[in-house]
């Protein structure tokens, strides 16, 4: 198997810029992602026409963004769960338990035990830490039942759906718990935003980081002598990313705080608002949280051993096992991670409502699974992307709120969303088949 003639043969690689390659393949953009972005833009444009231009206003885009965050955060975790050939039906119920635990911590436990009331600087952080401990513990426990006791995930989390929903009810006696701490509420969306200047700063940093990532990926390929994209393709991709980021920031910055609210804020500080004063919301903290989670989860999926093992286990559990991967412990880790993300999602969801309500997170498990699946996560395991799941959540939320704006009846809204889910998966199956087993 080692003859020298073949070694020299292998050194002759096809020229990196073979002329036959199409425009898209030269850009090396995932066509599936492109299709999803296309579908999303189409949905937006159709609703924009149907609502006489009310859909694509800064105000609605801002609202759409903050409505998507909670489901999108959980969807990133659901990608890992589904990739390892499991399912988590308990995320909505766990969200309720985490939210209840955090609400009780703020309003009842901390004031009683430590004398820390709402508004104390430590209160929100202790509450969030409690939520994370609760979420990660429940997730790890369910993961242990699934991984080590080999009870199917479907059953464990179906039981969990009933258990955690009602644990939350039991903890709060079914009452709405609120109002929550003011700092805590800043994670909800409109109550906590960066403002115009800082939003631009974040936008510029994001653009620089993205361009640096592109550049370092390219120089890494050059170092190893791998084929690279033509320079114009690299620049075009960079421009599209930079334009997307800055456009998003510009849109959120174009949504101005209503004058009445500004006057109220000035009054609260004992000031009078100067004439012609205006302020924009900018990027909400909850969206920053989602972006941070998305980056963290993507790095985990692609560049860490844990992520590699998650995908390997999904692709072939036996092979993963034979390669020395502890697939049982891996299951615990995946569900614990899911639990942690549910806790963060519970922070956003309850902060947005400004209180904990007994029905918080109801049916979220279905929205989260649907977002992951629309985003290209295969239920057979081994395939899925973080950005796809977030885009899936965004498409679902756009459909839902778009139809609400048009005035479609509630039952019809759900019928359409259900049909879109099935259709999206069918299109995905056809697409993968065309690619040939990919």
């Amino acid at each position, binding site marked *: *198997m*080692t003859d020298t003639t*073949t*070694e020299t*043969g*292998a*050194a002759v690689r096809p020229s990196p810029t073979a002329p036959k390659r199409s425009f898209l393949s030269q850009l090396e953009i995932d066509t599936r992602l492109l299709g999803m972005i296309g579908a999303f833009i189409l949905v937006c444009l159709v609703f924009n026409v149907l609502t006489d231009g009310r859909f694509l206003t800064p105000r609605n885009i801002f609202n759409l963004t903050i409505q998507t965050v909670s489901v999108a955060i959980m969807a990133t975790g659901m990608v890992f769960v589904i990739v390892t050939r499991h399912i988590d039906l308990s995320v909505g119920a766990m969200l309720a338990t985490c939210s209840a635990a955090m609400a009780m911590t703020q309003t009842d436990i901390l004031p009683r035990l430590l004398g820390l009331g709402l508004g104390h600087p430590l209160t929100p952080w202790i509450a969030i830490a409690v939520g994370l401990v609760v979420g990660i513990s429940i997730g790890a426990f369910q993961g242990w039942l699934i991984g080590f006791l080999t009870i199917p995930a479907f059953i464990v989390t179906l039981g969990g759906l009933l258990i955690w929903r009602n644990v939350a009810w039991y903890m709060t006696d079914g009452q709405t718990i609120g109002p929550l701490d003011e700092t805590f509420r800043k994670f909800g969306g409109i109550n906590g935003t960066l403002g115009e200047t800082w939003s631009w700063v974040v936008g510029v940093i994001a653009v620089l980081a993205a361009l640096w990532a592109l550049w370092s990926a390219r120089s*890494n*390929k050059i*170092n*190893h*002598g*791998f084929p690279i994209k033509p320079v114009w393709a690299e620049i075009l991709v960079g421009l599209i990313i930079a334009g997307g980021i800055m456009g998003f920031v510009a849109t959120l910055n174009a949504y101005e705080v209503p004058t009445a609210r500004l006057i109220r804020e000035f009054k609260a500080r004992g000031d009078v608002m100067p004439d012609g004063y205006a302020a924009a919301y900018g990027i909400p903290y909850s969206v920053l949280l989602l972006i941070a989670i998305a980056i963290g989860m993507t*790095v985990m999926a*692609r*560049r*860490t*051993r844990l*992520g*590699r*093992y998650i*995908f*390997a*286990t*999904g*692709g*072939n559990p*036996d*092979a*993963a*096992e*034979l*390669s*020395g*991967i502890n697939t049982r412990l891996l299951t615990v880790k995946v569900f614990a991670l899911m639990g942690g993300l549910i806790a963060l999602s519970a922070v956003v969801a309850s902060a947005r409502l400004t209180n904990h309500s007994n029905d918080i997170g109801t049916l979220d498990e279905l929205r989260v699974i649907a977002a992951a699946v629309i985003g290209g996560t295969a239920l057979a395991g*081994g*395939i899925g992307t973080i950005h796809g799941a977030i885009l899936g959540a965004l498409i679902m939320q756009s459909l839902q709120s778009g139809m609400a704006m048009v005035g479609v009846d509630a039952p019809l809204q759900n019928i359409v969303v259900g049909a879109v889910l099935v259709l999206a998966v069918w299109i995905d199956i056809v697409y993968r088949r065309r690619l*040939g*087993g*990919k």
Partner: protein
Amino acid sequence: MTPLVELKNISLSFGGVRAVDNVSLDLFPGEVVGLLGHNGAGKSTLIKILAGAYQMDEGEIWIEGKKANIHSPRDARRHNIETIYQTLALADNLDAPSNLFLGRELTNRFGLVDDAQMEAETRKIMARLNPNFKKISEPVSALSGGQRQSVAIARAVYFNAKILIMDEPTAALGVHESKMVADLIKELKAQGLGIFLISHDTREMLDLCDRVSVMKNGALIGTEKVGDVTEDDILSMIIMGKARDAA
């Protein structure tokens, strides 16, 4: 000379079935020992015990004169035992470098998986094993049977194995590729590796192996030097389940 591997009185039962029944085998450096027998004779089960995939009920494994505790594939790898499984054990959704380094990823100084480095190493070893191998960054599900086989072989060879287990390495291959595997076995043998080879092709086994062991219904029928036996002797051992002296 100390044997590389000594399997001593290994037994394993699944339910009431004795899949491996009191089998003892040894393997010396630079030697190829073939395992022959019908389907279900216990060959694959026996080598999976050595590979750490199954836990034996009774018996001992000695590696280079020392008793070894092999309870998982990780333990086996620590003893420089590499295995090419009949099923290849590849994660179909991952590309060749990810499969080659699965469980032993190369990482950069931040502890992140270094894909570029792994791809470079994969290109190097593939240039040696299968020069026609070009689909480095495609999922292995997109590869042909022979190409998949070379990924599995590359994984076993790359990490400087001392003991190589090959479970039907040529079953999915064409004539030309089978020849390449045979050449590789001879080369590795010359480097001093010990190889356990499982195959149904008796003629191929007599060509490649130094000794052959025949199993039937979980038990070892006998081990013979290939110079001492004919193909017919081996076939009758497989079919009749009797050692040569008794036949």
